[in-house]
């Protein structure tokens, strides 16, 4: 009986996933080529990739407060490579991701032995250091003014925004599937074991250092890809990409959706972005950020497993 129920819920989740995917594919057909709507959706997809990548690192018990470092490094490397070597953006993005992964391993090497909030501080510090290095290397990065970046799809092509949307959707789906497979693999189990109790995991023969470093590298890779995608969507990059808010968004999205789950970062990004955009139409600015703060506090206190746990909560009542 119990097994049956688990199967049903898994099927339900897959069902929801497939239905939302179909909906996502249909959106441009239903609403037409709406520049505003598609731009919002593209950014949502970028942040779904980003939050899922952050969440993968969190899965190993390592909460980074400075993921903007990887987001920005991916963006800068991709933008510079695309313009100087003439690579098409879609290929440059991979280089950006790989470079971010390389930096991720270096940062990971300093971080993996640290306790939660030491790691939080140090990752935060790396984002500030990355920001300083970028602004100081102005011959390469354009300093505070930033750089122009090639568009993913040239704007001269009609309906370029629609093509861009579909490319983003494909990449996002691919990333989520890869992350899903990782969490279901040996590595995912190892990461969870490490998060629950690092010492016990070590005793069980799990290579704690190896898996934590791998989590850092993979998370940084996808974060770099997300950063590069954003940069090639907007067509420019400035050091603001290292901002504190850029580091905090994936955390807010993941927590409100549901930490350590696949659906959490996706749902959280969509719901919070929706609230954000609705409030924008009312012309609110600081109020929306205050609301984000309040939502975060309330979720941590009253719904620590995020929005995805609401069905369970209702059932158990």
């Amino acid at each position, binding site marked *: 009986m119990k097994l049956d129920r688990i199967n049903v819920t898994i099927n339900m989740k897959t069902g929801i996933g497939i239905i939302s995917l179909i909906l996502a594919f249909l959106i441009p057909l239903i609403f037409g080529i709406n520049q505003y709507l598609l731009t919002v959706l593209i950014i949502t997809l970028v942040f779904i990739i980003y939050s899922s990548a952050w969440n993968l690192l969190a899965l190993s018990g390592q909460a980074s407060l400075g993921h903007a470092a990887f987001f920005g490094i991916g963006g800068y490397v991709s933008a510079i490579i695309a313009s100087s070597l003439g690579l098409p953006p879609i290929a440059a993005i991979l280089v950006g991701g790989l470079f971010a992964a390389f930096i991720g391993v270096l940062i990971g090497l300093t971080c993996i032995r*640290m306790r939660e*909030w030491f790691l939080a501080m140090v990752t935060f510090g790396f984002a500030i250091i990355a920001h300083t290095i970028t602004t100081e290397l102005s011959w390469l990065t354009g300093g505070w003014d930033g750089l122009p970046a090639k568009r993913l799809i040239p704007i001269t092509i009609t309906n370029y925004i629609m093509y861009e949307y579909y490319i983003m959707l494909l990449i996002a789906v691919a990333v989520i599937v890869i992350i899903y497979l990782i969490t279901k693999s040996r590595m995912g189990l190892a990461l969870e074991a490490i998060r629950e109790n690092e010492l016990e995991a070590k005793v069980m023969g799990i290579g704690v250092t190896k898996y934590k470093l791998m989590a850092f590298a993979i998370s940084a890779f996808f974060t770099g890809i997300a950063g590069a995608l954003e940069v090639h969507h907007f067509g420019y990059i400035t050091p603001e990409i290292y901002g504190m808010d850029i580091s905090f968004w994936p955390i807010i999205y993941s927590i409100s959706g549901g930490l350590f789950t696949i659906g959490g970062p996706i749902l959280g990004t969509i719901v919070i972005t929706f609230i954000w955009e609705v409030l924008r139409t009312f012309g609110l600015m*600081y109020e929306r950020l205050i609301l*984000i703060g309040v939502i975060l506090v309330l979720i941590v206190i009253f719904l*620590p497993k995020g929005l995805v746990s609401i069905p369970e909560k209702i059932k158990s009542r």
Partner: protein
Amino acid sequence: MDLSVLIQILVWGLYAGCIYILLAIGLNLIFGVMKVVNFAHGELLMLGAYAAFWIYTLLGINPYLIIALAMVILGIIGVFIERLCFRPIMGTGKLNEIFLSLGLIYLFQNLAALLWTTDSRSIHSPYSDVSVSIGSIQLPMDYIIIIAFTVVFLIAFQLFMKRTTLGRAMRATSQNREAAVLMGIHVERMDMLSFAMGSALAAAAGSLWVISGQIANPYMGSIPAIKAFAVIIIGGLGSIPGAIVAGLTLGIAENIVPLFMQSFVGLFGVSMSFTAWKDTIAFFILIIVLVIRPTGIFGEKGE
């Protein structure tokens, strides 16, 4: 480098260090008693600075008398934060504390921006034109007052913790919570008190900061708070002398190292300014310390 320039920089470092020390001691106290890390501590500094600004603007009394009032106001705010936010999540894991603090950062920064705009605010200190000259060295009076204030705060804090029953009860709670309960100490009241005192110390830092001629704005708290974290990690969790030494070291290093680097590369004929690196020095020190000892200098006995 000119000697008098060096001494001026040392005093500037001492002054910045005092702000870090006041923040760090508050954080240390809260961590010691509650084993909770409040990443939103910088926002308490910001609120303290605004409290000082508004009391000064509305009442127009001598800025240095305002500090006590700002501390009381922030102490009360601290009690509310502890009761409403941190108490419900105590014991649910370190990650939750980090995430909750993020929410508080968003809440306070933007509330301040909404209520008081993002304009920079400042107070005109009556002593801003006064300076003490020792030989050829000019020391601003405000810096000396602030250093003196910090010393007084530290002595008062130490006396409170060592000599009073309440201070002893707080230390007992931080050493062993269960045993403290058995000894009849109301540990939850100690939590509340530690948060109130930590917030009041942040308010002292904030009001001293704004009174000494620095500007206040809603986002002023993040960087000093982050550095205060670095200070308590470097100096050791729960160690007051450690925080003092690390705070002063950081304040001085931040001001000396860029100049030192500049004259160093100058030896090779390169002219390059390192002032942009000032805010990263705390992290470089922090990273070096943590790579050598992942649990911090006085690790182990922390959590």
